[in-house]
């Protein structure tokens, strides 16, 4: 018996009970649609997270000053001003796993151009900062070592700041006032978008480190830096670089056993790992829910196939009397079940993909539908049909033709 005939018989049987076939498929449709939509949202989300993390730069270690006590009041983390430009130089020279480093200072304030003004974050940094953060300028030039050495009154604008102060005009060469001090705009930085914490990284103005230390931040020591950003030579030596920095700074800051260090280090790959872990856990949870709905759908199919076998006992008897073998009957009912689930799977894939697209359009969630997830969903739905169709099909094939023919 050729398979095209089996397929034709199965299709006819499904068409005969259109409503029932549809309702039976519904479980699979919902299950597969859920799997596809959830995978689309999941991959979209983790893609965005990895994009954001990549936007900070790779293999980065942050060194943040610790807290300090002044007049009985403890400042928060970052309050101490004990990290200096010399620490940066020492890290660059003495830690073999470190590729480069930059000290930064951070402030916030009003920046004014003509009759426009904008409150933003002001960052002081060295040329290495832009190398570490893989952050080029789109126009003009970046900050040079000479700018830092001479404490030049020049600045780089983040995309958001440039847009808000200048609109569509070209800011380069114009004078802006940062905390009332005039600076020349030398360049515009490329847009980076949101950080993993959700802040707009483009809402920042960069000035040379020494300029910031002297003119924009109030501190006891003019060479103190707010935070250190360090790039390890590779991902492999990230942990080693962190250790080297810790021991070097402990030594330099004379932190002996039992004394609280006045700095702390933070490894960005840890943040990445946490983000990945949580998005994986979420996918797993949603996957489990979707699998349950597929199993429930499969049981529904088994149930209906059993009813169908009973209803069609006489037909099975006729087929057996005129020469159908056990395997022909088995194959016929298996084909019907698999056809049901595969059809359900296809509809589910279409619905899931459509749903994901609508969600991303309406809610602005990033979604990504991968060929892989579609393939998995399709074969999984076929597998559900094989698994849950086997028992009813075997029951049909095992019928005694005499009893089946006599069945009313």
């Amino acid at each position, binding site marked *: *018996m*050729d398979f095209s*005939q089996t397929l034709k018989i199965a299709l*006819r049987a499904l068409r*005969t009970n259109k409503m029932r076939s549809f309702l039976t498929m519904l479980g699979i449709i919902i299950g597969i649609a859920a799997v596809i939509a959830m995978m689309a949202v999941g991959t979209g989300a983790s893609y965005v997270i990895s994009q954001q993390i990549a936007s900070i730069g790779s293999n980065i270690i942050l060194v943040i000053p610790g807290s300090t006590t002044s007049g009985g009041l403890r400042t928060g983390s970052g309050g101490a001003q004990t990290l200096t430009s010399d620490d940066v130089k020492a890290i660059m020279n003495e830690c073999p796993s470190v590729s480069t480093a930059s000290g930064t200072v951070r402030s916030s304030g009003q920046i004014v151009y003509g009759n426009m003004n904008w409150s933003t974050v002001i960052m002081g940094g060295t040329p290495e900062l832009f190398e570490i953060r893989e952050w080029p300028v789109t126009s003009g030039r970046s900050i040079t070592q000479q700018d830092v050495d001479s404490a030049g009154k020049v600045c780089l604008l983040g995309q958001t700041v440039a847009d808000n102060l200048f609109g569509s005009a070209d800011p380069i060469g114009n004078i802006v006032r940062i905390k009332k001090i005039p600076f020349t705009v030398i360049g515009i930085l490329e847009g980076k978008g949101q950080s993993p914490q959700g802040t707009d990284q483009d809402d920042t103005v960069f000035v040379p480190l020494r300029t910031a230390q002297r003119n924009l931040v109030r501190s006891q020591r003019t060479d103190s830096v707010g935070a250190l950003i360090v790039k390890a030579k590779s991902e492999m030596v990230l942990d080693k670089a962190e250790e080297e920095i810790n021991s070097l700074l402990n030594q330099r800051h004379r932190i002996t056993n039992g004394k609280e260090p006045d700095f702390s280090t933070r490894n960005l790959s840890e943040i990445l790992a946490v983000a990945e872990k949580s998005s994986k856990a979420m996918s797993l949870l949603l996957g489990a829910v979707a699998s349950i709905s597929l199993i429930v759908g499969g049981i529904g199919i088994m149930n209906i196939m059993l009813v169908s076998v009973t209803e069609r006992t*006489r*037909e099975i*008897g*006729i*087929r*057996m*009397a*005129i*020469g*159908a*073998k*056990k*395997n*022909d009957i088995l194959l016929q009912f298996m084909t019907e079940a698999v056809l049901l689930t595969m059809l359900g799977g296809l509809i589910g894939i279409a619905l899931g993909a459509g749903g994901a697209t609508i969600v991303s359009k309406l809610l602005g969630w990033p979604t990504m539908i991968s060929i892989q997830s579609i393939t998995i969903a399709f074969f999984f739905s076929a597998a559900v049909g094989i698994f849950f169709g086997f028992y009813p099909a075997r029951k049909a094939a095992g019928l005694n*033709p*005499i009893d089946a*023919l006599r069945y009313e």
Partner: protein
Amino acid sequence: MSDVISLTDIRRVFTMGDQQFEALKGISYGVAAGEFVAIMGASGSGKSTCMNIVGCLDRPTSGQYLLDGLDVGAMDPNQLADIRNKKLGFVFQGFNLLARTPAVENVELPLVYAGLNAKERRQKAVIAMEQVGLAGKENNHPSQLSGGQQQRVAIARALVNNPAVILADEPTGNLDSTTSEEIMVLFTALNKKGITIIMVTHEHDVAAYAGRQITFKDGKIISDRPTGRTA
């Protein structure tokens, strides 16, 4: 002429719990090619059990059954399915056609399981439908046909694979007397062309169309005689 069907001391015992019931108590008869045999008997006489065995739907507990020279008793269910497909044609009391399936596809069904391709199937099915006088009704569904026409479709289905024997189980049981007569005339005509027919019935006027009558009672044959009508 050698016998198409040869039964020797066929016994069939049914076991229900610890009770045993012998439905056939040593049946022996032969049917020659081209014969038209009517099998009669009250219900419970064992004639249906015997037909099931002849139709290879059931196997005897003991005894030998040769169909077209083949020992059927030794075959497994798949071989029996093959025998039913190629050597036998069934006509039932309740027509047993597939609903919502065009007449011609019902007729094609045995050929589907025989593994013929679509073109050959259609050719043979159309010829078989002509033989039973249903040319032009190929695409009608069973529900659009009268009882007599449905039985003709069933007969065409039984004929289509050129079987050695046609087995008819109360073929007129669901039909009125005029239609019954038409069906019996058709059987007689087919028999004249050389087709062997074994028919179970309890109506004497239907049995009268056959050339030979075998009567069952309590699991035994009590009479086996020609009707005087020559095939």
